[in-house]
Structures are given as C-alpha cells and as structure tokens.
C-alpha cells in the first residue's frame, strides 16, 4: 500500500534546543495512525513541521497526493500545504471566535477556490454559484459532525466537545487527504470521547481521509489507532500496533508506566 506521508530523518532545532532529532515516520493511505509520548516529546513540533508552521533544518517530508507528484513539505507555507490536502486541528482549539459555526466551516470550504476580490465585490453569477457550492459543502459537513442545529451560534459559545467537532468539520471542508488531530479529546467528558472516537472512525471510513492523531488518552488511542509511533525527547522510541506498543518495555518506562488496563487487571 502506498504511503501518504513519508517523514525521513527530520531534525528540528530552536537555537540549539533539539525538538525533533532524526524522526522517521511513514503513514499508509487510509490509516489511522497515532503519535504518543510524554509532554515535550516533540509531538506537536512534528505536527507543526508537517503543516509548515515550523521548518525543520534537516530531513525530508513528502506528502504523496492521489494521482499527483509527491509534494515536499519542508519550505512550503502553511496555506499551500493546506491547499495541497493536509488539514489539521489545534491542541487548544483555535476557531474564528467572532464568526458563527457555519461561517467557520464555510471559510474552510471556500478558501480553496479561485473567486478573487473582484468577484467578491460585484456578486456575479460565478460568485453566486461558488457560494452555493460552499454552502452545500458546509451544511453537509455540519450534518456529518452533528453541529447543524448550532450552525448560527457564535463559535465561541460552543462547548469544548462541539469546538472539537467544529474544528474537524472546518478541516474536512478544505477537502483534505489527511487530517491531523492534535489532542482532539482534551477537555471533553467520557461520553463525548466515545462520540469523538466514532466520528474520527467515520471520517476515515466514509470520507476516505487518513487520520494522524496525537492523544494522551490511552483508551482512545488504543481503541482507535491501527498503528502507533512513540516519541520521547524528540526521537521515535517505538513503532507498532497497539498491542505491540503496550508490551514494549521502552515505552512503558518512558511513558505508559502501568497502563490503566494493567491496573484493571
């Protein structure tokens, strides 16, 4: 199976502090892949390198688009990478607070098409058609994530769980091939977590979008991920299926300790 992300020997430094050192990671197309590790291990740095927010000094990141040439991520601007088909959510959900839920998603839907300022000024037929397509996409996605009733609320009035859904919908609106989720379950309650896991699986199954996930909630990761990479101090210390990771001594020492499942036993 073809890989969607090929990350090879990526090193990211901030004035001498090494955030990622020689990280290699490969994600298969259509896979739900999780990245776990203790705080400060470099998980979010890896995400930021994948989305162009940070520029690693060494290594290669290639994003293999369907039916197109591979795109080398390093050196590209975030909005270019988003347009190419990499969507993401943020650790602390970052929405456009002054806009409604609907408008938040619509921005994602319309930012990829080419109606410029002139078209926006004088609403011609092409602009109206474009708006209609964006509206349809937006409604479809709001129904998909279950936020259709809250479409006209200001996004800052949404609950944590709803914000996560909103971010996912906004990411999906950009028509991505891969969705990067940075701690989607943070701040949500147990029942919201279950719904969220279902939603993430639905995104992959119904939309065919590959998922790359950072998460601290081990229950969620173990039930959702098909493969897991473990980062510690900026390097990959283990890689494998959830069962393999759970049994890996290095991972237990660095991060898991005795897992909740162990304690239950």
């Amino acid at each position, binding site marked *: 199976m073809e890989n969607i992300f090929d990350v090879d020997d990526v090193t990211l430094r901030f004035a001498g502090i090494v955030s990622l050192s020689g990280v290699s990671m490969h994600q298969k197309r259509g896979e739900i892949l999780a990245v776990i590790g203790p705080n400060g291990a470099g998980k979010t740095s890896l995400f930021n390198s994948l989305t162009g*927010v940070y520029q690693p000094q060494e290594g290669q990141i290639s994003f293999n688009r369907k039916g197109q040439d591979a795109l080398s991520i390093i050196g590209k*601007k975030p*909005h270019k990478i988003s347009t190419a088909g990499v969507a993401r959510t943020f650790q602390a959900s970052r929405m456009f*607070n*002054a806009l409604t839920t609907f408008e938040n998603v619509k921005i994602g839907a319309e930012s990829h098409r080419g109606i410029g300022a002139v078209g*926006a*000024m004088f609403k011609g037929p092409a*602009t109206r058609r474009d708006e209609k397509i964006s509206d349809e996409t937006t409604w479809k996605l709001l129904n998909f994530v279950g936020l259709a009733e809250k479409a006209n609320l200001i996004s800052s009035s949404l609950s944590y769980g709803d914000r996560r859904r909103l971010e996912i919908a906004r*990411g999906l*609106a950009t028509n991505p091939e891969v969705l990067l989720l940075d701690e989607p379950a943070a701040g949500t309650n147990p029942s919201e977590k279950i719904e969220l896991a279902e939603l993430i699986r639905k995104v992959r199954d119904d939309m065919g979008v590959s998922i790359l996930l950072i998460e601290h909630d081990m229950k969620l990761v173990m039930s959702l991920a098909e493969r897991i990479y473990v980062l510690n101090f900026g390097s990959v210390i283990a890689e494998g299926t959830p069962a393999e990771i759970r049994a890996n001594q290095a991972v237990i020492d660095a991060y898991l300790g005795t897992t909740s499942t162990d304690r239950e036993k």
Partner: protein
Amino acid sequence: MNIFLKSKILKQLVATLMISFLVCVVTGPSGSPTAPASGFTGSFNNKSSFFGIFSAPRWTLFVFLGLLVYVSFRIKLKYSENVSSFTDKVLFIPRKISSNQSTRRVTIGALVVFSLILPKIVTDHFWQTVLVSQIAVYVLLALGLNVVTGFAGLLDLGFVAFYAVGAYATAWATGSLPLPALFGIHIDPFFAIPVAIGFAMIAGIILGIPTLRLRGDYLAIVTLGFGEIITLFANNLYGITGGALGSNQIPHFAINIGPVKYAWGLAPVPYYYLTLVFVVLFIIIFSSLEHSRVGRSWTAIREDEVAAESVGINPLKYKVMAFAIGAASAGFAGVITAAQSNFINPASFTLYVSINVLVLVIFGGMGSIAGVVFGAVFIQAVSMYLIHTPPSGYQSQDLYIYIGALLVVMMIFRPGGLIPAKRRGRSTVHAKVQVTEGS
C-alpha cells in the same frame, strides 16, 4: 495617613486630579509675566470660561472633566448591570433597524434622501464647505481605514500616506507639480480620479508586501514611519512635489466631452454631490466585500492567523488586499481635497490626520460601516462647530482633550463603538452571557 494610603477611592481621586492638572498645564497657553501659571489660570489674553457658561479659572474645567470621567467610571463599576442593560437597550436600536430587512431599507432610503437634500437645509457657505472638505472627506478616510483596521485587524497609524498619495497623484496628473504632467498633457482632475485611486492602491501594495509580515505593534510602528516618510518626501522633494509650498494650481473638476459640459467651479455643493456618489459607491463595495469570502477571510486572519493559514488562507495576500482596498477610498479623498481647494501642501497630511481618522473609526465602531460613517459625521461636525462658533474661552488646541475624554467614556460604556460591528460585537455579547450563566 494610613487611611489615605488604604482608601482606594481616595487614591483614585488623587490620581484623577493629578491627571486633570497635568492635562491642564500641558494643553494650556505658554506662561507670561502677567500670567505665570497660565495653564491653571488661563493667560491674560485668554479669558477662561466654564464651557462658555460662566467665567472661572482654567483648571476648574479640567477638574470637572476629570471628575466626570471618574464618576462615570465608578457608576459603571457599581451599577454596571443596570447601566449596561439600559445603554444596551438604547444603543440596540441601530442593530434592530439593521436586522429587519424592510426597516433597514426604509432607513437607508431616508438617509439617502436626507443626504440629497442636505445642501438645501445647510445653506451657510462655511457649513457647505465643511460638508465636503471635512465631513465627506473624513467619511471616505474612515471607510478606508475601517477596511484595514476594522475588517482585517491591522493597526495602521500612517493612513494619511494614502490620502497624500491620492492628492499628489491628482496634482501630478493635472500637471500642477514642478514635474512634467503624468501623461504629457494636463488632464482634468475628474479623469485623475482613477489615476489617484490606482496610485494609492499601488502605494498600499508597495507598503504592504514588506511590512504586513509583521504583526500587531510592529506593524503600527512601521506604518507610522511610512506616514511620516510620505509627509517628509512631500516636504523635502522640492523639485518634484513643490516642497513646503505644495501646489496651488490644481484645477477644479470639469467634464468636457462633446455635448456634456459641466464645470464644478468654486461653490462646494457640486463637490458634495460628486463625493456623495462615491461615498455610496464605496459603502456598497465595502459592505459586499465584508459579506463575501474576502470579508470572512479578513475576519479569520484577525481572529487567529495561524488557524486561518491552516485552512488555506494566504494571510499576506489578504492583508495586502485590505491595504490596497482601504487605500482606494483614501486616494479618492485625496482627489476631492486637491480639486476642491485647488491647493495642497505637506501641512495637510500630518500625523494628526491619521490619528483623527483612527479616532473616528474607534468611536464609530471598528468593522462597522454604518458606525464609522456616523462616527465620522458626528465627530467632524462637532469639531467644526467648535471651530466655527467657539464657546468663549474654548481654545482650538483643546479639541483633542474633549475627544479623548469622549473616547474614554465610550470605551467604558460601549467598547465596541457607537454602532458595534456584528462580527466583533457578537463575541463580547456572548462572553457576557456566558459569565452570567456561569455565576
């Protein structure tokens, strides 16, 4: 002594009085042997008065204003719930009007008719001139700055630069500068309108591309510098801009195409109608932009630039676009100023203009087109009234104190401005709701 140090109200009162006295001295006339502390007492030739009501030493006015601000602040703190619910009710009227489609149309229609017959109501020559050169021009400037600061959230402290570029481009195109005329022939200022708007937009792009990578305060400082550079260019490039004297040969507007002949001449009213057409045009364009994907992208960048990038918005492109589009209306304001008064010089394009326009935008409501138009009309009309018929004892340099005090009061009671923007107001309204729900 302890009581004095511990009492919060006393401390605040002392601070208020000190600020009042400071402002009093700083803004006062310079002292003379007969009136050594003229800041406090008023100078010998400047008889001081209390808003023209009665004669009093100068400081009483400032202490009164200081206490007024302080008391309103206390009232706000103590009765904030009641006061804000009352002010909300009163100030919610414009929102009610705008939310209902038919009342909005009626209101807009009434306003258009009112603006059309305004020169018949205001027959005084001074006020007719003010309508064009002070009110309409500042409405245009405020509309332009509103795009940059209100929609895209970029603090521009050098907005006067685009106004100056528009005015000087008009002078150049009409052949009124020491330079050879732009197109070889002396064209009429009426046809210089697109030229000036084009130059202003290009200036916006040239300034925007390198500086809009900066954020927040840094951008404000760079734009401040750009505004000063343009003024200094105008002042120092004698052979190009006419130096400090500027140009006084800019012709009035005139159309002369075949059978269509019309000359604007000296009277202000024809300029008023021309400007009105363009104000309406800019309002239509800017408001349709606000509700388009461009406007949404501006809001997205203003709210969270990193998130905006992550959904595929190119921040630099949209910021430069905001600069260029905002500069367009300032460029047109430059044409009107140049052609109506025949005369431009660097003294008309100082930092004060930038700050004044920013005050209009903040007062009216950042990001709200109706707000900035009303804000500009209101503040400019009041300023001009004070210049035209000053109350006895009023000194023209004190104007900004009153406007400053007005802004402070506004910020306490209505931080969103006179008519807050929907897209800005909403977040604060909801924050309030959440707090009350939580408690």
